[in-house]
């Protein structure tokens, strides 16, 4: 039987509010973006081997009056606690309860002991997720590690609750469990006892007994059906966030593209949002459809795509020699002679280039180990400023910016790519809880490593140092200041000035230099004349003598448009030529006139004929297309 386990706290325990939420208050990122980061980062960590991780987001509405599991979540007792904890205003809930459903596939599920919360260890994901805060079970080399990210799932729910159905890779067990994290300890009206901020939803109601998950197969089957889960028998975890607020499938989709374009395009992650699939083959067009609201510019995304295809798995253009990081600038001695030449040539030609930078990592109490990372960049001469990204194991550390602030360098696109496990472990422990920036002074990294600042700065500044090193010495430029001092007389094809300031005239074209006979235009058989409210055409008798009459003529008309084909955009509401009261035809030696919407057809029967059509809006241009041909049995002289 599914039930909530609410727990009164011991009189000696402190009470107050949770401060973990504050670590995720970030004015540069929306709550949806933070939720997406956390919910995609965790499955990427828990991937099985090199499988593509698949995550599905959906919003599903469940009828509260017709759901077995919802009746246990919103039991009378639960509603009393939710109201007392100020999660709901009163006990009147809507009939339809929406759920944000997040399902990951290709992952191992929440592994480890689930019946004893005291067990710790690297493989104890269950306890870490449900019973720990600020100390994840994940090894530090994985993307998480701070153990705080799960709060974003609770914060996404109006009732700060989360249900999870996990199917474990190791034992195929399906476990259903949930938790509510109140903002603070609370009291029930008329009672003196204080209640714990965490309440569990599972198989045990008695707060003195370890809360354990439900393994009730019929209940789990019903839940899967009601929430339309795609889980089936595949391992992984389905997170169910009741009553999500401020979350739509569209803003989830945008956040996924903005935050995880790189691993998706790289083929490491596949995300389905509602019906929309974002994978290696679709994410580029999906990002394009975001237009200017996308985080990365189209040019930078193109740079990322090119380097994914060509630069990640090849030998780099150069490898920095040991000791490159001992000085504040890169020098010729940082590379071999051959490497130097290829680097400079690639940079000058605005080609993609990559450099591997080796580093010694000094973990306390251990011998130094060697790690490395790769910087990939390309000069962008036409850009005003640089764009860059740091990717650590598929996660973008997008708060780190070094090139942007530098006014000294040539504009470039750069990626600092860290895939090395040892270096990733170091950087993870230096990350702020949001994983957007690094901080060499965080207690965790200082406790584990020596020389944290030097090591971190070496990674952070490598792209900047490389660009500064490769930027060629300045050259005299006669266009750069045109922004301020444009020469009004300087346009393309006009004489250019030399360094002396004098204009060098273009070489004159000498008589006889161009010896091309340009044929005279072919005489037309019909002359066109524009009228204020229409047009007229008249035959050219000399030309018409060569024709075999009658001449079939078809005239298409449409009001001119700024964009697109005016004839395709013609609408009967614009005008209707069949209206012979308003559209007047005047003709001479013309027969078989027929009107058809915006088309008029007739036959010219004599070499001296004319036709006029009036009645168009006098304020609008009319596009006129005249097609004519001789009688169908006759020879087409024009085309001979």
């Amino acid at each position, binding site marked *: 039987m599914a039930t909530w386990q609410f727990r009164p706290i011991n009189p000696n325990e402190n009470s107050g509010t949770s401060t973990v939420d504050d670590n995720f208050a970030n004015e540069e990122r929306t709550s949806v973006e933070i939720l997406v980061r956390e919910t995609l980062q965790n499955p990427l960590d828990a991937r099985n081997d090199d499988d593509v991780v698949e995550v599905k987001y959906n919003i599903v509405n469940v009828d509260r009056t017709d759901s077995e599991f919802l009746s246990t979540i919103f039991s009378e007792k639960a509603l009393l606690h939710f109201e007392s904890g100020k999660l709901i205003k009163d006990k009147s809930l809507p009939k339809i309860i929406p759920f944000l459903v997040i399902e990951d596939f290709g992952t191992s599920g929440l592994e480890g002991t689930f019946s004893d919360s005291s067990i710790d260890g690297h493989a104890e994901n269950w306890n870490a997720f449900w019973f720990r805060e600020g100390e994840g079970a994940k090894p530090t080399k994985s993307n998480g590690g701070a153990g705080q990210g799960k709060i974003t799932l609770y914060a996404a729910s109006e009732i700060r609750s989360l249900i999870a159905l996990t199917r474990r890779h190791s034992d195929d067990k399906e476990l259903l469990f949930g938790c509510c994290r109140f903002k603070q300890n609370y009291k029930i009206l008329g009672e003196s006892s204080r209640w714990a901020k965490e309440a569990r939803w599972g198989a045990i109601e008695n707060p003195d007994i370890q809360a354990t998950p439900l393994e009730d197969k019929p209940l789990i089957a019903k839940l899967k059906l009601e929430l339309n889960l795609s889980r089936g028998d595949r391992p992984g975890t389905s997170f169910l966030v009741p009553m999500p607020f401020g979350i739509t499938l569209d803003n989830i989709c945008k956040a996924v593209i903005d935050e995880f374009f790189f691993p998706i395009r790289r083929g490491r992650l596949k995300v389905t949002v509602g019906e929309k699939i974002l994978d290696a083959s679709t994410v580029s067009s999906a990002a394009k459809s975001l237009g200017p609201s996308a985080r990365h510019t189209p040019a930078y995304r193109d740079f990322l795509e090119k380097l994914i295809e060509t630069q990640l798995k090849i030998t780099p253009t150069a490898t920095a020699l040991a000791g490159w990081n001992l000085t504040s600038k890169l020098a010729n001695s940082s590379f071999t002679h051959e490497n130097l030449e290829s680097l400079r040539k690639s940079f000058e030609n605005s080609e993609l280039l990559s450099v591997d930078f080796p580093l010694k990592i000094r973990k306390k109490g251990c011998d130094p180990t060697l790690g490395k990372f790769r910087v990939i960049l390309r000069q962008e001469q036409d850009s005003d400023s640089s764009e860059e990204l740091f990717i650590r194991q598929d996660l973008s550390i997008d708060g780190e910016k070094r090139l942007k602030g530098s006014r000294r360098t040539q504009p470039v696109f750069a990626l600092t790519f860290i895939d090395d496990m040892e270096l990733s472990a170091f950087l993870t422990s230096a990350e702020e809880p949001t994983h957007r920036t690094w901080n060499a002074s965080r207690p965790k990294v200082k406790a584990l490593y020596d020389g944290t600042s030097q090591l971190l700065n070496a990674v952070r500044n490598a792209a900047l140092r490389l660009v500064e090193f490769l930027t060629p010495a300045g050259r005299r430029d006669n266009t750069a200041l045109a922004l301020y001092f444009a020469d009004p007389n300087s346009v393309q094809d006009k004489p250019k000035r030399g*360094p002396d300031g004098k204009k060098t005239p273009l070489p004159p074209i000498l008589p006889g230099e161009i010896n091309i006979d340009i044929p005279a235009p072919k005489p037309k058989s*019909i002359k066109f004349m524009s009228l204020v409210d229409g047009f007229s055409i008249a035959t050219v008798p000399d030309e018409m003598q060569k024709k075999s009459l009658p001449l079939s003529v078809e005239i298409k008309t449409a009001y001119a448009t700024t964009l697109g084909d005016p004839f395709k955009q013609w609408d009967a509401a614009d005008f209707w030529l069949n209206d012979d009261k308003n559209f007047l035809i005047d003709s001479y030696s013309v027969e078989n006139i027929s009107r058809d919407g915006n088309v008029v057809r007739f036959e010219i029967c004599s070499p001296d004929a004319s036709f006029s059509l009036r009645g168009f809006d006098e304020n609008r241009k009319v596009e006129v297309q005249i097609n004519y041909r001789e009688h169908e049995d006759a020879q087409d002289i024009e085309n001979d």
Partner: protein
Amino acid sequence: MPKISKTTNPTGLKELPAKAFTVRLITPANGPRSFWLERFDHDLSGLPSGTEISCVAHAGNAEEFFQLGTIESPIYSANIIQKLPTDRPLKFRFLFCNPGEAKLSAFAENIRAANESDAVGESLIDIEPTDLHGPVWKLVLPQPVPDSDRPVLLVERHLFPTALAAANDMWFGALVMPEVMRQICRLIVENPGSLESDDTWLGNWSDFIETLGVHALQEDADHIARENWIDNIIVAFCAKASIRLQLNRIETELTGELL
């Protein structure tokens, strides 16, 4: 089948050539693009004074509309483009109509920003990163005599390894360029008649000064009149969209608010 395609023109709408316009565009790494009309050739247009100019920036199927004043005093300040996709070619359509009338009298279509097309204009001053051993910049002004080199702005290469790095820097643009303009002006007043001479590099500046809309300096101007003329040039120069834009960027960086 022979075909003739024609367009009627009942209102006598005039199409102006692209060479009547110079449009500049700035695309910052973060934030919206800005454009401004840098030059409009009133004489070439043949349109009467008082004719109103407006501009439609368009990319793909999206458009954004801007009023640009009248042809005798167009608005040269920067306009922020906010609604257009960045992955489609950006073009400008200029529309002209008489005051108070809805009917268009002229238009120009498919105008591209000068720095986005291949026709990057030349500058009247060169720029070169070099070792200055202390100063950040130095303007080398050769005497305006026949066969002399034209001016070059030297910048400290450790700060600005490339010419573009200096030219696009907002602080450098806002602080240094007006002073460069002042030094040019001072040379002009020290060499009366130099603007009219085609034999020296200073003669190339006459059209530029004219675009600033400041009256020519009287030949008999005294010291005070000369200083006033220089100040007027600098004020007009700083009102150019290129300087104004840099000031806006600085203001945004300092206060988070636009001027």
